[in-house]
């Protein structure tokens, strides 16, 4: 077919109301008629090729323009949303983080903890100042914390807003509206200015629990974490303490729990110790109690916090934390 013949044929088809997208495919697609024609030109003698080439290219430009115009969008017909259809049947899935978070909530529910939640964007005041984190503490570095641009700045030049670096801000927020005794747990998303790799994400999930009641002490904290370990991992699982340092607690302890994978027998993941480093805990720091408007001479409390992505990964054999945020259906549909 020559360029001229193709021209008439395409216009006729267009007139007859053929679908514009398929016409484009038919003529200009990879094995479209015009494309084939252009491809066949190389076999022609020099003079003829120049002539036919010019015609074919002109036609291509014309058809491109015609079909481009045709791809202009046709809005849905008025009343389209009033028809009725049946929603298809499919199998759905909850994200493993959601499922794991529910387990945590249920465990603490059985131990008498309320549930609370709060904002992901926090003021420097709630995220640091009122939690006894001094102005020059390394955690406040821009290398660690995402700061948000806002009009107000405090005297050190830090912007006032941050993506919260821990859910500990809830300690102060909770005590604004109520007085002890209380037992509350609060899971949520937290943020650290970190490069993403197989073990780190710039946002991840954490939960914390706060208890303020008469007689609260380190031994009760240990008992509570033992209960948590046993419910999460199985009979015989335990927690242990090592000395540590956090601004929010004093004394502070590092919490290890029985390794999820080997149940404490020792394996590669726990470096053959049988224990997994799981989080931080301690007695609420007197300065934080004061920020809660509580007198440290009268009130005592303990708190503990853990990032739970790693617990989730270990309990489900997930090797790479990025799987949790890639949203690959091949991953999500497994849970």
């Amino acid at each position: 077919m020559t360029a001229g013949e193709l021209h008439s044929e395409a216009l006729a088809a267009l007139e007859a109301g053929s679908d514009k997208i398929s016409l484009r495919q038919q003529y200009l697609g990879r094995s479209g008629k015009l494309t084939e024609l252009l491809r066949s030109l190389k076999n022609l003698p020099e003079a003829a090729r120049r002539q036919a080439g010019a015609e074919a290219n002109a036609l291509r430009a014309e058809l491109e323009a015609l079909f481009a115009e045709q791809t202009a969008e046709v809005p849905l017909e008025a009343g389209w949303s009033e028809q009725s259809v049946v929603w298809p049947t499919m199998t759905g899935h909850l994200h493993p983080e959601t499922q794991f978070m529910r387990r945590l909530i249920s465990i603490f529910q059985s131990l008498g903890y309320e549930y609370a939640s709060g904002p992901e964007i926090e003021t420097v005041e709630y995220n640091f100042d009122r939690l006894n984190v001094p102005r020059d503490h390394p955690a406040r570095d821009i290398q660690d914390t995402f700061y948000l641009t806002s009009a107000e700045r405090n005297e050190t030049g830090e912007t006032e807003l941050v993506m919260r670096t821990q859910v500990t801000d809830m300690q102060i927020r909770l005590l604004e509206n109520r007085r002890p005794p209380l037992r509350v747990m609060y899971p949520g998303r937290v943020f650290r200015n970190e490069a993403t790799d197989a073990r780190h994400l710039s946002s991840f999930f954490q939960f914390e629990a706060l208890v303020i009641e008469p007689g609260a002490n380190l031994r009760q904290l240990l008992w509570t974490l033992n209960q948590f370990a046993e419910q999460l991992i199985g009979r015989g699982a335990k927690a242990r303490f090592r000395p540590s340092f956090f601004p929010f607690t004093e004394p502070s302890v590092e919490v290890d729990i029985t390794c999820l994978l080997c149940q404490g027998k020792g394996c590669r993941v726990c470096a053959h110790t049988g224990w997994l480093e799981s989080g931080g805990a301690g007695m609420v720091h007197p300065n934080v109690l004061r920020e809660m408007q509580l007198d440290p001479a009268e009130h005592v409390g303990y708190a503990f916090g853990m990032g739970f992505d790693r617990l989730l990964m270990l309990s489900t054999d997930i090797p790479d934390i990025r799987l949790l945020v890639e949203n690959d259906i091949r991953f999500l549909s497994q849970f």
Partner: protein
Amino acid sequence: MRIVHEILQELWPDVPAVDCVADLLVQGGVEVESQTKIVWPISQGQVVLGRIETIMPHPDADKLQVTTVNIGQSERLTIVCGAKNIAASQLVPVVLPGTVLPSGLEIAERNIRGVHSMGMLASAEELGLGKAEDVIFLLSGVDRPLGTNVAELWPETTVFETSITPNRGDLLSHWGVVRDLKLVSGLPATAYPNELFGNLTLSEAKPGAWQIDIQDSQACSRFSLTEFQLPASSETPFWLKRQLMLTGSTLYTLPVDVTNYLTQLIGQPGHVYDADKIKGDTITTRMTSDESVMLLDKSSYKLHNNLVVADQVGAIALAGVMGDERTAVDGQTTHILFEAAHWNPKIVRRDRRSHGLSTEASYRFERFVDPELPELAAILATRILQQLGGKLLSHRVAGQTAQSVAFSYDPTLTDALIGEPVASERQQAILLASGCHVAAGETWQITPPSWRPDLTMQAEVTEEIARVVGLAELKPEPVVLPVRPMVLPPELLKIEALRDFLKTHGLTEIYSSPFVPIQDLQLFDETTDGLLKVTNPASPEMTWVRPTLQYGTIEALRRNQFEAETLWLFEIGHVAKAGQGQWTEGVSEDIWLSIGGFTDQPIELVQLMKELFTWAKMTNAVVTEVAPEANQIGQLTIMHAARQIGKLIVPSQTWLKRAKLKRPLCWVNLSLEAITAAAPTPPLQTPDSLAAYQPFSRFPKIVRDVTFVVPQAKAKHFEEACRPVLANLPLLSGFELRDTYQANDGKANMTLRLTFRAADRSLTDTEVNSELAQVIQQIEQLTVATWLDRKE
């Protein structure tokens, strides 16, 4: 830092064995990241102690020298050597022929440009002892017979890689670790090991010509200068080299090596200047206005309001961080000035951060160095340098050490916080052992030692008591539990019930990035007006806080568009803009729902909305068609109780193309507030356990449809009957029943969609065809089905 068991043992001859030390460190709150046994690294052949007797130029090579070496035998070895740092009478490691070096190189007698060389003089790195300059590893000061196996000089020991909590800077030296190990093992600790300092005091030494001018005592409370004359070409002794190498320090010149050794040993970072390069006779510590300095890393720094040490001309060190190039010691330096000071931790931290520097010195000063140490460090430096032939010329110290502040303490409060009584005698003993001064009485007055700035209040002493008593000894105490489980708040139950509703309707939940890149905002024709910006994003994708969830939903649909035939996703998450919200002033942060999926019938999503509104008892919800905006072919607004709570969007082909989406889709953004207002609050559905993750292939899949003729009676269980083929055929990753056609002859035509995929490669057509043939064959064997296209 690296803690070397051998150095601990020198400071504490009765130090426990390696594993016990590791346990005690952990008990005391030091993290042991690794524990490495150090051994002599050469197992084949021998390296012996030799003394260079003569050095002659090589007759036929400018860069080589010919040495004769005495290794304690009557015959001298002739050895060709290329290194420049050798001289007659030096002690050197001689690698004998037949020895295999850690690099795998076997040393043999050989002819080097006409000279017969009978072995090799080696560098520390060639011997596998650690990273070092490419010079011969001189064994100065070794008092052993020539010919001694050098392996005997390199006995086995263990190095612990430790990390400390930021409040315990006193554990950044070997002595600090010994002191705490003793305390934790129930022994009284001494402030500093007197035997190290002998009876030497420096107060008698002549003050000399140097003047010290501390301009801000808040920034620098103590500053000492000690001046020495060293013998020409003095060499760091072998024992000191070994200890520095074990701690991971780099070897430089004698005075620098001694300074670094003091840091590792007692925790006082120091600095040495070439005294002859200093201008004027007054050393000042002061804040800079504007000046620049070339530091030892050979980079130039512009100093503005930084704390420095300066001479008459200008800065000679960024205080507590690094010395400068102009006054640096080199191989020829013999007249040195040793500085030991107490710097304000906050200023050191600020200054080193502002210049992006981090050094062994700044790391320690930031975490507090005992203000009593500068004087002790000067004494120790003097002792070591004097032993090596150095001469003390002068010593001067300026400034006052701040006295530790006493505070009151009630031992019974510690009992209450721990949950069991620790006898007050025991508490007192622990505090005395930790170096505190204790005035017991009605309430106790505690004065902490100069090296423990972490002890300032009651609760911190409680921590100290609990730590020393041993947290591992703690017995759990049951907590009173409520009779019934706590009631969960309706806000939570409603959101979780919504998740369950969506899951039951076949939707899959995603969690996407809380941030959105500018390209995505542009794709959706959004401006950045009113958006919250991240000041310091880790990558450009994290610049803006997401104002809606749609970006993540579309991104997830794009990622999976070739993966799943039908796909509906949802996310529930926080979104934020500048404005007024429930939590933080100036921020409007809310929880939203986004749903999106592939369909050429957007009415499907409208149907889902209707079912959602019924479930959520949103009787006032109204969806209204509005004129599509640019890049849309349809838009609905969703109103509830006369307020707009969301939008449903059907994008145009042009937009899909721009968004790199190959299939039609639509999505909805909804505020959660209206949905959860009246939603049901069923109990929380909690899974007993989660499925174990199965790795999946990231290579493309190939899909083939194949139809079988099945007797109608067997049609119902056909799909199930086919299932075993999945296990038999590795490339077949899945199948589903696509279509069933009931013919009139009592048979059904059933079409399976088969998916082929390999874990490690893209499949070829040939591979898939051969696997497909096997699938058909096996299905025919397993069931009574016949392949529709089989030619009878």
